[in-house]
């Protein structure tokens, strides 16, 4: 939007996949702080120019919330217009049953870290009347291939539903449910989608749909083929 002000935007898991695609889309107009698990050396040269980077491992939820909060302060920000809590992980269930480690890591990284980060970021978002965006998944309705992952994303859905109501006077809370995208997530999760992968949307198109959903502040929003075929990647509001 011409003349719209530049925003301060935090994107967790912003160094790869959908987070990075979204960052690339927003970097020209907005100030970005991205977080990821990799060291600064490893991500050097892959991030959009001008974006800040912060190492924040989500496998310890409480520590990750503290790290993100400290990182924002160190970056010189005392408010936040948008927090996009996008970092996530997944594990294919071997023989239909998740390992204990996969259950705990899925809940820690996808749900509990986002939950505690939301709690920590509330004062910063409140100051600017900002928007908290949780990135769920179409799997939030259930998936036999990734039960623990589906559960963690369902948790985000329930969290967003409650928080949107609790914070309605101060902060817009929303949950977006992207469908599968051509990122390296499936490979990392040990899940081979086979020929189905050719049907996955390009990360760039999903990021465009994410950006317009974030600008519209609606919740919950499913970002998949139906929205794409309706022109969701090309129409809609711009952030």
């Amino acid at each position, binding site marked *: 939007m011409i003349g719209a002000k530049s925003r301060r935007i935090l994107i967790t898991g912003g160094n790869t996949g959908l987070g990075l695609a979204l960052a690339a889309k927003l970097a020209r107009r907005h100030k970005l702080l991205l977080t990821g698990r990799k060291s600064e050396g490893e991500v050097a040269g892959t991030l959009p120019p001008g974006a800040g980077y912060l190492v924040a491992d989500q496998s310890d*939820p*409480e520590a990750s*919330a503290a790290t993100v909060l400290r990182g924002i302060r160190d970056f010189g920000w005392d408010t936040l217009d948008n927090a996009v809590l996008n970092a996530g992980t997944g594990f294919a*269930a071997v023989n*239909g*049953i*998740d*390992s*204990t480690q996969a*259950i*705990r890591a899925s*809940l820690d990284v996808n*749900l*509990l870290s986002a*939950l*505690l980060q*939301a*709690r920590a970021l*509330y*004062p910063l978002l409140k100051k600017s009347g900002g928007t908290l965006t949780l990135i769920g998944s179409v799997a*939030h*309705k*259930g*998936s*036999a291939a*990734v*039960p*623990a992952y*589906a*559960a*963690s*994303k*369902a*948790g*985000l*859905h*329930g*969290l967003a*539903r*409650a*928080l*949107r*109501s*609790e*914070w309605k006077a101060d902060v817009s809370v929303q949950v977006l449910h992207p469908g599968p995208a051509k990122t390296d997530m499936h490979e990392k999760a040990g899940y081979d989608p086979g020929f189905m992968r050719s049907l996955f949307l390009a990360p760039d198109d999903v990021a465009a749909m994410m950006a317009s959903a974030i600008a519209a502040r609606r919740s919950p929003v499913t970002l998949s083929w139906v929205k794409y075929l309706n022109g969701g990647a090309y129409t809609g509001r711009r952030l």
Partner: protein
Amino acid sequence: MTRSPKRALVTGGSAGLGAAAVSLLQAGGYEVVVLDKDSPAASENPVKHISCDLASRPELDAALPELIASGPYGLIFLNAGINATGHFESIEAQAHIDVIRINAEAPMVIFARLLEAGAMRRGAAAVFVSSLSHFTGYPGAASYAASKDALAIYAKSMRRHAKSRGVSLTVAFPGPLRTGHAERHAPKGADASKPMDPAEAARLILADALAGRKSSIPGSANRTFAVLGRIAPKPVTALMRRLIYSRL
């Protein structure tokens, strides 16, 4: 079907809905194993008590071998849960962590490991106690709502695989119950006569589980609320806000 002895596992069986389920199961001829951090109340039909604080990962890991060895079970009732009510941002981080660990993570781990170890008989029923909040939203208990949604969807995701091992999965969505724990988290001025008697809720849920139903919403008022929550999620969450959040 009636190979004796029938054995059941109830988590959180020392109080509330879990204790009510224990009594009903004993009356139905089950030997009951209770996994709880507190000892069960003394009764004429003693249960086997395995002590475990489900907020602690090491404690759960240490209890699992005995839990598996105490099977095979004909019925498991994954009921243990806690709530944390208040304004989300003012609730202690540790309380949110405990809610997610006890309500979602622990039952997921217990179910996965029991199923994997073959500690449930063919024809066994597994009950996951979620909450009516799955349909209505729950402003004032955001982490609780998150944990119960996670548990419900985990159960739904596991249904097909469990069926291939002869285990049926029932997700229970009870509304407010007249238990000591629930009363501590109810808003001030809430009508104490409205919550359901836990014995009645346990009876209805167990009947649905033994009939192999996929879900169990005990009580017609709760079923109405669940349907409304599906048709009009936003107004129902707004109503929950008025009934609960604004009174906290």
